[in-house]
């Protein structure tokens, strides 16, 4: 396990990570060979050879391409079909996506290739009966007898996961409707994932994970992978938040490569809406994270560092005036980052009155030291100037 600061130092130094984790392998696929006999036209973007890299999804033993496909916002089934034809082996959807229409589209798009790929879906139901009903609906819509991975959808705390939900997961496995089960999570992974490991009944975790996140998330993921839990990464191209998009040429691919080259991550599920995104994302499997990739990502981190609060919680209780620093920075992000001044202000004003009236200028020296370089006194003072 790496130290919390080593990865960031490593990134900043522009060093190169291992190509892929142990047990990975490369396959070569000539995309031009995909044009079927009799067809006279093909997408020109598909006329280049692409290397596919494979990893094993933890103890499930499932072999997956290190780049999978998140189907959530894909509107045209041809993109899913082509991804399967090109050799992508991991496809992710959910019962709730597009109110069920997404599962139907994915099922139709995969068609006869269903059993050649690893297919995952998710349930938002919160009780045993509801989960069983959703599973049956998912199988029907996906036109399959089983899913490879069935997730509890979007959990952020162990308190959200009840025993009967775990029973429903296990029952689905016993019935052969789900080969493996897991949880998808967007937040609080540093608490949830260790709990999953300790619980011992989950095969896979689908977690938001990217180069700009709190190292505590990475530590949790590393521990999970070492215990044999399969790790699937999502939100891999986020760069802090919505307004901190990766805009530099090559940045999206670099961010994807950062995750596909991570030794604890088996596969990723970037969203893809068109053939060109598909081709671009496939490139992430073609080679290692380069020094240039590191530079691009390090530059982005450098750019967002003074502004971007990672909500790591390390400043909790550190303010001499007792201010909830992370909350205030979040409210400021609403105004500065998203143009939602009114929302930021109203949330600021909902704080305890002593916090609303506090002024950073009253302190000679700030007692809060952000480990990621957020300029806390300056940002807090701006929030007080804007909202108070």
């Amino acid at each position, binding site marked *: 396990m790496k130290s919390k600061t080593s990865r960031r130092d490593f990134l900043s130094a522009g060093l190169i990570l291992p190509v892929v984790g142990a047990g990975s392998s490369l396959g070569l696929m000539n995309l031009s060979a*995909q*044009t*079927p006999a009799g*067809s*006279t*036209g*093909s*997408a*020109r*973007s*598909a006329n280049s050879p692409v290397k596919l890299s494979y990893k094993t999804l933890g103890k499930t033993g499932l072999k997956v391409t290190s780049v999978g496909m*998140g189907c*959530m*916002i*894909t*509107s*045209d089934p*041809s*993109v899913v*079909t*082509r991804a399967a034809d090109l050799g992508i082996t991991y496809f992710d959807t*959910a019962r*709730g*996506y*597009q*109110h*069920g*229409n997404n599962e139907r589209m994915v099922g139709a798009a995969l068609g006869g290739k269903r059993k050649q790929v690893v297919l995952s879906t*998710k349930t*938002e139901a919160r009780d045993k*009966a*509801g989960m069983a*009903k959703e599973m049956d609906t998912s199988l029907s819509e996906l036109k399959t007898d089983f899913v490879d991975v069935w997730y509890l*959808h*979007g959990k952020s705390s162990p308190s959200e996961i009840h025993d009967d939900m775990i029973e429903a997961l296990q029952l689905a496995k016993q019935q052969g409707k789900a080969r493996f089960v897991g949880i*998808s999570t*967007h*937040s609080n992974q540093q608490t949830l994932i260790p709990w999953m490991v300790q619980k011992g009944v989950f095969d896979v975790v689908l977690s938001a994970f990217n180069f700009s996140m709190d190292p505590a998330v990475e530590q949790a993921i590393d521990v999970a992978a070492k215990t044999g839990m399969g790790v699937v990464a*999502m939100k891999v191209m986020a760069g802090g*938040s*919505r307004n901190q998009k990766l805009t530099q040429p090559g940045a999206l691919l670099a961010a994807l490569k950062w995750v596909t080259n991570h030794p604890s991550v088996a596969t990723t599920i970037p*969203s893809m*809406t*068109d*053939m*060109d*995104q598909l081709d671009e994302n496939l490139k992430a499997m073609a080679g290692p994270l380069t020094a240039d990739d590191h530079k691009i990502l390090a530059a982005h981190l450098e750019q967002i560092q003074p502004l971007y609060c990672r909500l790591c919680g390390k400043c909790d209780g550190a303010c001499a005036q007792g201010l909830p620093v992370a*909350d205030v920075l979040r409210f400021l*992000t*609403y105004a500065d*980052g*998203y143009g*939602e001044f*009114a*929302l930021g202000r*109203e*949330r600021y004003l*909902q704080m305890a009155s002593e916090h609303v009236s506090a002024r950073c200028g009253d302190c000679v020296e700030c007692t809060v030291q952000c480990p990621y370089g957020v300029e806390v006194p300056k940002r807090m003072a701006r929030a007080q100037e804007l909202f108070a």
Partner: protein
Amino acid sequence: MRIVHLALVPFLLAAGTARAQDFLSCQLAPGWTQSEVVHSYTADNLYDYKDGGAEGYLIYGFAGMKSLNCKSGDDTLTIDVSEMSDADAAYGIFATNRDPRLPIARIGMGGQVQPQSASFAKGKYYVEIVVNSANPNMIHTAELQALVDKMARRIEGRETPPEALAWFPQENLTSAGLVPESVLGLKELKRGYVAKYKLGQAFIVLEDSPESAVAVLKNLRARFDGATDAKVGGEAFQVKAQYLDGICIFRKGRTLGGYANLPTPQEAAAQAAKLAARIP
């Protein structure tokens, strides 16, 4: 801290239009009472509520959402009102999320009411209502219909679907909506209307000018090996492609349109000609 009281939140509705409390109220549903304060979400924290499904809102120009929970005994009624970038986008997300096996009702620009859920779009607002009942077999259709009718009357904005949807030939049409990016999975066709038929699909993309439409058509043609001219609209090509089967794409003024997934390019061109004739 994510919970905000309704009265304190002016961002969802622009000045001069109906106020949120005029239509986001449990009082519109007799027998239901508000159980929590109204929750507000922006693009920043929609993941907290919709998990991965948030992307499906963001891609349609999501601006904000208010969520209201009402209670009646052990049952809960959740009303989510999303503000999208424009009326077309609101209709687009409605059309994407609706059940294509059921008809569209005349509620705002369009809506659907089912036994335990309802949705509709009006103006730039997209409304979703779900009943979580202790008895999952309970039928709530009538009260949901009454609720959406009251809400739709109070929400200001356009009441007709996007004009371009009427240009699609109606015979054998199964569904139609707005694709926010990459129509047919092609990045050149950035945002457009797509109609699904029992066989094949049609699309319409409105470019800013005839010149930009010319450029897009040229780029599209370069994408496909073996494309040949077709006599549709101002200019057109047809081709047999691996994933789109028989396809024909034409330009008429600043509008691009076409058919795909038909058995042959010739059939696609024939259907495309019918579509072109309906475009003003």
